């Protein structure tokens, strides 16, 4: 009998304590942000959509090799001085935003940008082309220097 009333008392008391906690939160300011009006300040290392600086890229294919899901497609034409990059595409359907492509890049051309809200209606549109076929990028150092592209410094020879 005593247990019976103790249980009822416990049930009521724990309910009131819980309600005390919840009512306290009503007067507190909510912690959520009103996205998209208010936005989170992205930290510097945020890994958003992959961005390629075409001025810097010399099509060394390191990023494509490092990618665990093979979502980077690079096409080149020609050889030696006349080697051009005709296509650099990132398939964001496959990309997993791991950031592994950034590390081996000798010229820091490929970076993780701070863009993240790229919702699209068609999957094909998520294959981002960074190089237009009409304007291929030279990959040889000499040609790049002539045409005003970024040229990496000559300290070591990247594969």
């Amino acid at each position, binding site marked *: 009998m005593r247990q019976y009333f103790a*249980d009822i008392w*416990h*049930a009521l008391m*724990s*309910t009131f*304590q*819980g309600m005390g*906690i*919840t009512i306290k939160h009503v007067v507190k300011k909510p*912690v959520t942000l009103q996205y998209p009006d208010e936005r989170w300040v992205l*930290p*510097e*290392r*945020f*890994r958003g959509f992959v961005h390629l600086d075409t001025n810097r890229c010399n099509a060394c294919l390191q990023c494509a090799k*490092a990618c*665990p899901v093979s979502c980077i497609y690079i096409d080149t034409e020609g050889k030696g001085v006349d080697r051009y990059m005709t296509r650099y595409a990132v398939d964001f359907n496959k990309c*997993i*935003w*791991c*950031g*592994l492509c950034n*590390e*081996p890049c000798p010229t820091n051309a490929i970076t*993780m940008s701070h863009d993240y809200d790229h919702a699209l209606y068609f999957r094909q549109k998520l294959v981002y082309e960074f190089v237009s076929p009409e304007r291929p990028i030279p990959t040889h150092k000499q040609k790049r220097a002539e045409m005003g592209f970024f040229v990496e410094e000559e300290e070591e020879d990247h594969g």
Partner: protein
Amino acid sequence: MNPAIDGVAASRGGDDRAALPRLKSELLELNMGPQHPSTHGVLRLLIHTDGEIVHSVRPYIGYLHRCAEKIGEGCDCRQFVVYTDRLDYLAPMNCNFGYVVAVEKLMGIAVPERAEHIRVICAELQRIASHLIAFGTFGLDMGAWTPLLYAFREREVILNIFERLCGGRMLYNYYDIGGVRFDLPDGFAEEVVDFIDMFERKLDEYNTLLSYNKIFIERTADVGVLSVADANAYGCTGPVLRGSGVAWDCRRDDPYSIYDRFEFDVPTGQGEMGTVGDSWDRYMVRIREMAESCRIVRQAVKALPEGPIRTPELKKIVKVPAGAAYTRTESSKGELGFYVIADGGATPFRLKIRSPSFSNLHVIEKIGPGQMISDLVATVGSLDLVLGEIDR
């Protein structure tokens, strides 16, 4: 004749059938999942019920199978760290940890002190985050919505810390073979300590709101009691095993990394509200483990040395030597084992992942029957399953 049905008739006094020969009793076959709100992902439980009473439970898994082990054989070790994120997606840091420890053991390399400390801090923060989800979703299984949102609020702080650290909020890819990928950002230590200070106060709030609520106790105490013998027979680990009263924790009993330097307790189920090994015990072990993780983080932050964050002599592309290594680490769900066999090529020859949730799930076959449907939901919730890890 179905023995289960006969059992039902017997439990009703046996003579029911003789008296009412035309009344046929039949078990109801019910698919709980894969699209069911309380199966924590895509778990499918095939249950047979007699009214509200569950007669048999059979888990069917594989809806989230992504060939993680096979992928591990196809890509080099650094690339596979990315995939370990996706095993237990609620505790990626712990999964990263397990894998890099295995590869480092195979390669026989030592990790710089600073990296070890950073690893421990991240793993313990991640354990808190993962247990917060376990706490919140368990409340949700019981019908209490608000604890989930509070748990997410605190988890968010951890995610912000991680985001500043490595740029990812959920899938970090932070641990690297031989170290970690980024050094700590400015003010990281203070941020972590602030969070721990704040969080230790919040634990009391959780206890008042949910743990010691009478309804919650009634729902979880004496529900889904897992005996030590069953837990051992099914290979349960982590909070599920500790909930049954076995003080076994890889961090303490088979230390890896630098866990032997820290002082912490291994909370076990005491059966305070009912029987040892019931759902409440499993739940409470997690709450207490969060407090212990806070202790470890405090010690690790205090002892954080300066120095390199990655073994300097290691190349960018890691080649594993021929051989085999098995390591077990304590992830938030239990013992996470990685067995790496290499034949000297660029990629491991074979990779086997021993995921804790997989073993923990299957006790449901043993402890599920005889309960009510609501209890089954409570039991599944208290096992804290993540299907990404079970199906791999």
